[in-house]
């Protein structure tokens, strides 16, 4: 099982990023091998549709689970169609969220925002 978390920095005690689609990096943790890798988010600087692109990136990386503070409804549509389960993370360290999830302490995220694009 692969768990993805949007993160701010490439270091062990990085905080979880407040944005999903525009997070600079993703942490991808493999529960079978107990290894983690840091991936650059190709959607971080997208002019639009960042949520869709970031979600596509994660499903292409084989993510099964996403831990995030929030997410847009377009990203949710991609993730849910690909059977990625989205859980509501808590602000703070990425690794604390990973531990909390593995201990079954996080709830499913079932509210997604309508996005920020085209709000002129």
């Amino acid at each position, binding site marked *: 099982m692969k768990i993805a978390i949007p993160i701010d920095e490439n270091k062990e005690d990085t905080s979880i990023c407040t944005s999903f689609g525009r997070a600079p990096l993703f942490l991808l943790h493999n529960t079978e091998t107990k290894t983690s890798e840091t991936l650059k988010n190709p959607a971080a600087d997208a002019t639009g549709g960042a949520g869709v692109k970031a979600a596509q990136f994660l*499903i292409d990386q084989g993510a099964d689970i996403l831990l995030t503070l929030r997410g847009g409804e377009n990203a949710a*549509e*991609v993730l849910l169609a690909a059977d990625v389960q989205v859980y509501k993370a808590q602000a703070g360290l990425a690794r604390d969220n990973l531990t909390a999830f593995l201990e079954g302490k996080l709830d499913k995220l079932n509210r997604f925002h309508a996005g920020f694009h085209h709000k002129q």
Partner: protein
Amino acid sequence: MKLAVLSGKGGTGKTFISVNLAAAAKNATYMDCDVEEPNGRLFLKPTKVKSASVDTMLPSFDETRCKGCRQCVDFCRFNALAFIKGKPKVFETICHSCGGCLLVCPHHAITEKWHPVGRIERGSHEGITVITGILNPGEASAVPVIHAVLDDTSAHEGHVVIDCPPGSGCPVLESVSASDYCVLVAEPTAFGLHNLQMVVELLMLLQKPYGVVINKIEATYAPLEDYCAQNGIRVLSRIPYSKKLAQINTAAEVAYEQDEESRKRFQALLQDIEAEVRT
């Protein structure tokens, strides 16, 4: 002459100025590009209204032809396409109808289908051609409807007055792009000045000539006057806050037609702008 009336801040009186400038210009065309809330028609009450649909194109996939090469997904700079569980998916609110995905698909799996996003209405009021853009609720982009309004060339003999949406984003940029001169309507408040500055910045980028109308003045707001003076921005008109104008507006009447003082003011304003455009 094409005049764009804009403000940055909403509620400053764009429609009030636009409608009355169109009335002063006689055989003019009034174009309502504030397509999310077009209300010039409430004042001009156009008759003989004809409506036409505004549609954009969306890609449509033939799944039997799609080989999953994802060239369309990679090509789309708006990220409106995804490929999930072996199937392509379009995000309609993100798509900009550029048609690029059709061109790059090596398997001819993509065609286009029409998608209605709004409509335009054409009518007339006392010799003024009234063109109104109306965006369907829930649509993400106002730009296709604004283009349809601006592209309407049914009756452009006299002046064209373009009533722009509020703000300084894409819909405003589109509405202003075809104009010869811009009229910026500002309220004498800190908020009014702040948003005026944003629109001034936009017009400097677009290199459009412009002047300011200060509307609803109860007392002189020095920072606004100072800003205009320091930046060499011409104040074309100062319109006092008046109970009479408020009453005419709330009755959805055209001040130019109801009030002698307003008639003179808007005639003078139009002549001023004509002189500015000539120089």
